C-alpha cells in the first residue's frame, strides 16, 4: 500500500504533508503531556520492533502473502491513536528515506493512510465496538477495518491524483485488502492481543484505571 513517488502531483502531496504535520504536532504534544513521564524513547524502540514485524511474511490462502501494518495493535495496546501515529510515522520515514518503500514526496500521503487512518480507525473501532460485541471480536474487526479503510483511502487518493480510475482502484485495492486484512491484520492482531494479555496483561491499557496496570 506504500504509494511511491511520482504517482501523486506535487500540490496534492503538499496537502497530505500539511495534514501529517498537524497531526504530528498534536501527537508530540500528547507524548509530552499525557504519556506518563514522556515515554518517547519507549515508542522509538517499539517502532524498531514494528519495523521488523512488517518484514514478516504472513501466508494468505491462494498462494499470496501479506504483511502486517501494526497500527491498530500499537494503538489498542498503548491506548491512544497518537502512539500508533508516532510509531508508524517513524517506520514510514525510515522506509521512505532508506529503503525506497513508499515515496519521499508521497511520505505525507502514506502517513495519512497508514499512520493516521489506520491508528484512528483501529483505536476508535476497538473502543466503540468493545461494549457492543465484546473485547476479542472488537480487536478483530477494528484491526481489519484499519487496513481495509486505509486501502480504500489509497484507492480514492490515486483516483483524485488521476493515476488510477476509482472503480477499478476500489475493486483491486478494496477487494485485495479486504481479504488480506482478514488474516494479515485481523487474525494476527487478535492472536497477538490475546497472547500479550496472557503474558503481560499489565501492558494493555485499561480505561477503567486510566493508565497502564
Amino acid at each position: 500500500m506504500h504509494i511511491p513517488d511520482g504517482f501523486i502531483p506535487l500540490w496534492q502531496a503538499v496537502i497530505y504533508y500539511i495534514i501529517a504535520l498537524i497531526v504530528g504536532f498534536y501527537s508530540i504534544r500528547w507524548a509530552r503531556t499525557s504519556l506518563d513521564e514522556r515515554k518517547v524513547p519507549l515508542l522509538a524502540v517499539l517502532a524498531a520492533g514494528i519495523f521488523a514485524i512488517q518484514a514478516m511474511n504472513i501466508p494468505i490462502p491462494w498462494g499470496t502473502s501479506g504483511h502486517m501494518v501494526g497500527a491498530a495493535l500499537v494503538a489498542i495496546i498503548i491506548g491512544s491513536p497518537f502512539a500508533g501515529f508516532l510509531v508508524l510515522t517513524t517506520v514510514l520515514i525510515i522506509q521512505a528515506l532508506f529503503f525506497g518503500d513508499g515515496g519521499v514526496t508521497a511520505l505525507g500521503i502514506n502517513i495519512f493512510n497508514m499512520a493516521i487512518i489506520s491508528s484512528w480507525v483501529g483505536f476508535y473501532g476497538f473502543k466503540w465496538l468493545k461494549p457492543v460485541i465484546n473485547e476479542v471480536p472488537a480487536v478483530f474487526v477494528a484491526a481489519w477495518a484499519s487496513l481495509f479503510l486505509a486501502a480504500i483511502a489509497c484507492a480514492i487518493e490515486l483516483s483524485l491524483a488521476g493515476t488510477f480510475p476509482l472503480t477499478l482502484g476500489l475493486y483491486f485495492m478494496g477487494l485485495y485488502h479486504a481479504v488480506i486484512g482478514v488474516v494479515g491484520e485481523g487474525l494476527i492482531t487478535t492472536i497477538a492481543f490475546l497472547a500479550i494479555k496472557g503474558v503481560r496483561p499489565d501492558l494493555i491499557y485499561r480505561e477503567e484505571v486510566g493508565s497502564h496496570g
Partner: protein
Amino acid sequence: MHVGISQIESESGKKSIIHSLDGRIKLIITLCIIIYAVYTTKIPVLWVMELYLLVLILVSKVSFSYALKRVLLILPFGGFIALFQPFIRPGVVLYTLPLDITITYEGTIFGILLLSRLIVCLTAVVLLSSVTPIQEIVNSGRRMGFPRELALILSLTIRYLFMFYDELERIRNAQKTRCFDIWNKKTSYMWRLRQIAYTIVMLFLRSYEQGEKVYFSMLSRGYSGESDMYQEKKKISFNDYLFIVLTLILILSIELIRHFYFI
C-alpha cells in the same frame, strides 16, 4: 528490505568522493532530484536524470548489481499501476485485444512516464542510502532543523532496527531448525498463523521491554523531555558546494533546454 539490511550499511561504509560529502548536501540533492522528477512531465528529462544518477553511482563505487537489485525489488507495487495505464486510460486506440481490451497511446505514454519517474526516484533513494549511513542522514536532518523529538525518535529507532532484525532472523532460524515452514500444507493453517502471531508478539514484547529499559536508563542518566542529541559541528567544504552547485546547474539547464526545445 529484501536485500539484507546490513548490506545497506556496509555499502554506505565504503570510501569515495560521494561518500565523503556532507550528509546535509546529499540529503538536499536527493530531495531536489526527487521533487524535480515528480514535477516534470517529460520522459527524456527523466532519462537524463537517471543517467546522471548512474554516473554518481559509478563515481561512488557502489556495487552496480547491488543498486540495480534494490531498485528492482522495490518496483512491483508502483510498476503494477504503471503497467496498467495503457489499458485503462482513454485515448487514441493503438491495438484492440480480444475481450474488448484496448491499448491507448496516451495510456502507454503515461505508463512510461510513471515508470521512468519511479525509477529515477528509487535510484536517488538507493544512492542516498548507499553512500550515507542511516544515522548520518538523521543527524544531518537535525542540523537542518528537524524537530528535536523527531530526530531523537528516528535515531533511537535506527539504533534498534538492526537488533530486531537479528532477533527476527534468530527466531526464524530456530523455527527452521524445527522444520517450520509457513507454506507447509501438512500442518493446519490456523496453527501456522498462530506461530507467526507468536513471533510477532515476541518481537513486540521484546521491543516494548527493551524500550522500557532504554527509557529508564536514559532517565537515570538525566534524560528529560527537553534533552537534545549531541551534534558534532561540521563545516560544509568546497567539494560540498561544488557538488550541490553542479547538480542544481544540471537540473536548471535540463529545465531550460526542455523549455526552449520541447515546450
